[in-house]
């Protein structure tokens, strides 16, 4: 009797835990607009998204979700894809490779999913790529910057595209790291730089590219350190680099670590600016401890300075989303439109089924779109041909753009 009760009680607690975690993880947003007067006689096709909708990076992920939602809603209003209504389905990857893989499996098992926008993290894309590619589903990331995703294991020596169905509208760390180094060494005049990363695909790759370029430009990389992505106390690593007297710290990783790290640098008496990549460009960086004068690079140009992004920012404001479009909104909007526009060309007057997937990948490869971020086109590896980047610096409680430029090899 007592044993039975025990089992029941255990089961109840476990069930409650499962239900709660299910609430947190599997938030799915179904499509918005109904299509108005468009002809939708051929049915519904789904544009998927995989991004961190909860967890530390959700500020970025939710902005991505809303921006893609906006693109899909607009396509439905404008009857962009003849005969079809588009639905939008966003899956939460919690910035975790394994959960992203599950999301990819879920989306790829739905025959109506035409393409997937995402992911945010390079590490999650590594587990998503093979799954989507197995079903020939096109994937476009607005945010992955690790070079190996398009260029294979040896990006600079012998580039080889691993997945023909994978594209990205963000430029890579091969460009972003050196771009940051050129600014920090040549414009900001920093000569002794400590480089720290979180050991993940994105952070370690970016830090490496930065360190190489900084050394090439004559600066000294005084330390090369690693921290855990879930660490909160950085006293150890700061104590290690402090006696080396760096005049700047470069961090390869994202804002949940970068913000507290910046604050703890100052608290330990090391009052030098911290620079990072696109992963730290968010207001949350400052809320968690980022200091005025900290720098960051980001792919593309700030929406406010881009005439081409005006229509997007206006429409986003009019749509009344709860969250700002964040660092990747503009690029996500473009990535979604690339899929929709290619789909429209492939469908034409016909229908879409599995046999049309290779044609859709070809159509994306041929993209030539005037997007919100500027010209959108892809090279033979699936990388964007747009090498525009921007330096940001913290002013007040947010990042403000300092200068935008096109990367030049040094």
């Amino acid at each position: 009797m007592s044993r039975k009760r025990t089992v029941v009680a255990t089961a109840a607690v476990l069930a409650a835990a499962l239900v709660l975690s299910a609430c947190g993880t599997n938030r799915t947003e179904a499509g918005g607009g109904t299509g108005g007067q468009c002809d939708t006689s051929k049915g519904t096709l789904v544009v998927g998204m995989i991004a961190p909708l909860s967890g530390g990076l959700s500020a970025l992920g939710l902005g991505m979700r809303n921006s893609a939602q906006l693109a899909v809603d607009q396509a439905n209003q404008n009857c962009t894809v003849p005969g079809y209504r588009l639905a939008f389905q966003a899956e939460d990857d919690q910035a975790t490779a394994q959960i992203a893989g599950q999301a990819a499996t879920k989306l790829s098992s739905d025959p109506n999913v035409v393409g997937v926008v995402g992911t945010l993290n390079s590490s999650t894309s590594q587990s998503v790529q093979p799954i989507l590619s197995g079903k020939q589903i096109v994937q476009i990331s607005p945010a992955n910057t690790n070079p190996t995703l398009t260029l294979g294991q040896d990006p600079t020596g012998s580039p080889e595209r691993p997945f023909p169905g994978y594209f990205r509208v963000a430029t890579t760390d091969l460009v972003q790291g050196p771009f940051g180094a050129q600014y920090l060494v040549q414009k900001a005049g920093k000569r002794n730089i400590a480089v720290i990363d979180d050991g993940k695909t994105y952070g370690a790759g970016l830090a490496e590219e930065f360190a190489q370029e900084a050394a090439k430009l004559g600066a000294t990389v005084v330390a090369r350190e690693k921290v855990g992505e879930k660490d909160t106390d950085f006293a150890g690593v700061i104590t290690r680099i402090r006696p080396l007297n760096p005049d700047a710290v470069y961090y390869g990783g994202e804002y949940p670590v970068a913000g507290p790290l910046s604050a703890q640098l100052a608290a330990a008496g090391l009052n030098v600016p911290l620079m990072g990549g696109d992963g730290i460009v968010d207001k949350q960086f400052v809320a968690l401890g980022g200091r005025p004068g900290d720098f960051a690079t980001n792919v593309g140009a700030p929406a406010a300075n881009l005439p081409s992004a005006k229509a997007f920012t206006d429409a986003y404001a009019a749509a009344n989303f709860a969250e700002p479009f964040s660092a990747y909104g503009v690029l996500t909007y473009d990535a979604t439109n690339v899929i929709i526009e290619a789909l429209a060309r492939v469908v034409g007057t016909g229908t879409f089924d599995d046999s049309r997937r290779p044609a859709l990948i070809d159509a994306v490869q041929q993209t030539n779109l005037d997007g919100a971020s500027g010209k959108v086109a892809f090279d033979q590896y699936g990388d964007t041909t747009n090498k525009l980047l921007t330096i940001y610096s913290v002013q007040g409680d947010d990042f403000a753009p300092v200068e935008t430029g096109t990367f030049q090899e040094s």
Partner: protein
Amino acid sequence: MGLLESFSTQLTQCFGSTSPPVFVFLQQIINGLVLGSLIGLIALGYTMVYGIIQLINFAHGEVFMVGAYGGLATFTYLLPTFAAREWYIALPLVLLGGALISVLVAVAMERFAYRPLRNAPRLAPLITALGVSVALQEAVRVFYPNATAALPFPNIFVPGSLSFSVGGGDIAIKYSGILLLVVSLVLAIALQIFVDGSRMGRAMRATAQDRDVARLMGINPDRVIVLTFVIGGALAGIGGVLYGGYLNNINIDMGFQTGIFAFTAAVLGGIGSIRGAVIGGLLIGLVKSLGGQCLPGGTAYDYVWIFVVLIVVLVFRPQGFFGETERVRA
């Protein structure tokens, strides 16, 4: 050869007279003591609960996390602005709020999750503890506003750092770090005195030794067990608030990671022993900070050394430092 060489260069880096100088070494010791005292404070909760009901309460790390969020909620929603500005008003109130929430959660957890399983096979409450841990984490994530991402935690103590020159450089300790260290040690000593000296402490020790015989002596074991959870919860809640004030940000994962270290500290020190938990915590803090400074791999491998020490200690002393001679005093 290569490994040995890098080991020896790292060691001379640490203890040698050249670089880095002595102050780095001292700073790392201070870093380690601050972190270690927190781990010890949390470890007290593991060790006491294990001592009384032989349950490894894996959800205890979440009680620490909930305490930090409770403190943040107290600061954000309950404190009037004038009180929030003065630390000597804000600090006690935020500590009280955090401790209260933690105690409530700990007591509810005991009443609804563990008590029904009191006489079940030991695996059942253990799995339940894991379930409670996940449930608490997800509950905070879903119900606390914006808890999906890390949240900034306010300054609740004198801001800035104590800084002084020694050994060829400046050492900086945040005042909030000193507070964390001092409060943790004082609470641990107070707990030891309480358990050793008071009537209720004697009841706790009796229950730990033999629950049935303790009942024959007129002790109500349920009350003793609830009290254990109350004390453990309060300590964890205070730890959560002080940790938030020290690092100025909190997230829902903080309980899991700190919980694992605290559990390790309790095992190192000899589970069931109050003194052991604190010493285990300090040892872990020192191993992490000095291992990150002196051993190959730097801070990337500092967690590795903690568990290397755990394994080595358990090989030679499976019961931990104070496991046998001072067993189950709480």
